[in-house]
């Protein structure tokens, strides 16, 4: 079957789902946005914001790059053998790759996946061949430039057997005008493979964000995801799924959310422990500022013997007008599973504040130390310079808060 035939089969399902709301988050009227290629130029003028979301335009310490502006690919490169980085449209010319096309995510999941499928233009395709350790990250940059547009990249990442890959994706918008980003990401980690995926979002207060992500992890595979949202958004709703399909596979899913201004955020991670002795954890840190509203979700489904899962969901309210709801869910469908969760939401403790002020810090400095401490989570599995980079981002997030 070729691409055209595959799309023909999927099309009626997508069309039927065009009005299907997502179960969570603000329901958007898609008719106010258009899904076009976009007439945006390249990345000129956005160098600083791209740097802030982890993109190194000099490609130092990068194994490959992919830049997309609106729905147009402006650059892609792979700098080593065994690694493919190319636009999705090109990758799908090879019918073998169709095996991964809309397989982890059904096109009729909701109206956003349906719209993304029907108007599909581009996205990144990253593949690592069997037994290849790509030790420096591949970077992907998704820039939204044209107002009123739906940017809907469809990304596919395949990590071959016993291979290793780091991907860092930076997403940003250049303007304050309205827009919608629907990122479709299908990840496939083969037997013994490891994928670390780091995503940094810096949208803007007029942008709606609806990423749809599903990862399939095979036997002994490892999937590590770090998500950081740094800027205000109009609304953000995402509930990515890591499906541990192979025995003894593992996942570590971390999100760090800054609820700023009037952002409406509904975010979480799902861990499906579907194979024997698979395990993983979901960690989240949410900061509630201004009049932001954040729902922090986490769900672990234990559906195989000997699985272990843990949720740690923490929220820090820094404004009386902001709100954080933590919704951890554990679903045990067998006897031999071990699922645990801890959730805590609070304010800065006066005791800690006074203690630090007695150590000589101003109230503002003391709060900033506490916030930075709150954001300190172990960044596992990352190469040293990427981990350091993320630490710096967390430093600047803590410093950015004005008390």
């Amino acid at each position, binding site marked *: 079957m070729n691409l055209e035939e595959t799309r023909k089969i999927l099309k009626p399902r997508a069309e039927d789902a065009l009005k299907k709301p997502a179960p969570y988050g603000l329901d958007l009227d898609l008719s106010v946005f258009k899904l076009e290629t976009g007439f945006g130029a390249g990345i000129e003028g956005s160098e600083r914001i791209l740097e802030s979301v982890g993109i190194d335009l000099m490609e130092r310490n990068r194994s490959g790059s992919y830049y997309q502006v609106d729905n147009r690919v402006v650059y892609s490169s792979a700098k080593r053998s065994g690694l493919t980085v190319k636009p999705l449209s090109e990758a799908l010319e090879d019918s073998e790759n169709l095996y991964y096309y809309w397989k982890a995510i059904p096109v009729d999941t909701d109206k956003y996946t349906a719209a993304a499928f029907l108007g599909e233009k581009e996205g990144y395709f990253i593949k690592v061949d069997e037994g290849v350790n790509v030790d420096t990250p591949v970077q992907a940059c998704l820039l939204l430039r044209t107002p009123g547009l739906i940017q809907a990249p469809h990304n596919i990442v395949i990590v071959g057997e016993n291979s290793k890959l780091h991907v860092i994706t930076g997403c940003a918008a250049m303007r304050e005008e309205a827009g919608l980003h629907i990122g479709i990401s299908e990840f496939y980690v083969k037997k013994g493979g490891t994928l670390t995926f780091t995503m940094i979002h810096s949208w803007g207060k007029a942008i709606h964000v609806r990423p749809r992500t599903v990862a399939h992890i095979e036997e002994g595979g490892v999937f590590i995801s770090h998500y950081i949202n740094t800027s205000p958004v109009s609304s953000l709703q995402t509930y990515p799924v890591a499906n541990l399909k192979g025995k003894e596979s593992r996942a570590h899913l971390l999100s760090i959310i800054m609820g700023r201004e009037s952002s409406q955020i509904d975010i979480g991670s799902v861990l499906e422990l579907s194979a024997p002795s698979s395990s993983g954890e979901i960690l989240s840190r949410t900061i509630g500022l201004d009049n932001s509203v954040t729902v922090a979700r986490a769900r672990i489904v234990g559906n195989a013997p000997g699985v272990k899962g843990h949720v740690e969901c923490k929220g820090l309210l820094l404004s009386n007008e902001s709100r954080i709801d933590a919704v951890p869910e554990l679903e045990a469908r067998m006897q031999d599973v071990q699922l645990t969760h801890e959730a805590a939401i609070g304010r800065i403790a006066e005791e800690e504040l*006074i203690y630090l002020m007695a*150590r*000589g*810090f101003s109230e503002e400095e003391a709060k900033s130390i*506490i916030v930075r401490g709150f*954001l*300190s989570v172990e960044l596992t599995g990352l190469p040293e310079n990427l981990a350091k980079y993320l630490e710096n981002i967390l430093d600047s997030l803590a410093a950015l808060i004005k008390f």
Partner: protein
Amino acid sequence: MLYLKGLLVELGSKTVIKGVDLQVNRGKLVLLMGPNGSGKSTLLHAIVGDKRYRIVSGSLFFDGMEITGLTMEERVRLGLGLGFQFPPRLKGVRLRSLALRILEKRGLPRDEAERILEEYSRLLRMEGLLERDFNVGFSGGEAKRAELMLTLIQNPRLLLLDEPDSGVDVENLAIIGSAISRYLSSNGKASILITHTGYIAKHVKASEAHVLLDGRIVCSGDPEEMVSNIMEHGFEACANCRRARR
């Protein structure tokens, strides 16, 4: 260096310190003793300016200047430093980075800050704990040593220490005592040290001791004599002494 006159302090709606006069001179270490709930911690927190402890009357002078109306930040900047009895656990805040920030807050360049931290962490045997979150999972002795280290590197001229010896074994007691003595041997320092048990008295050289009972200083005198009396007879003896003095 420090002079308290007729100090009354409220915590919540309760008057805890009911009129205390106290003077601490440069170069001196003063022991403050008393049973639980007598107001020892309240007094030190009020001196350093912890806003939870409200000074309702009386005055505080530091180096001849009245500091009663100053905020804690201002008092700390003048050279007051308080080592807490129960410092909070600070998750995600590593001891090393906290210590370096304190040193940099003093205006020291990074390399100088690193050097001082190394010196004090060696002195207080903290080397193995610097990468840990402050106070998270610390043993009793570790918590006391960490707190003393952070207080000393602030370089306060008036060192206020709230029970640095409680819940500490003999070996830690010696480490803590010698660090305090060494610190006070440098010029222009003074200290008020609260001890519930008096154990620390063997390891530091105090010039004077005071006993606080129900918010008032009831007995003052030679530290060695007072510590041994209290160890033998408890604070009961001080209460009797107070009655006798009336």
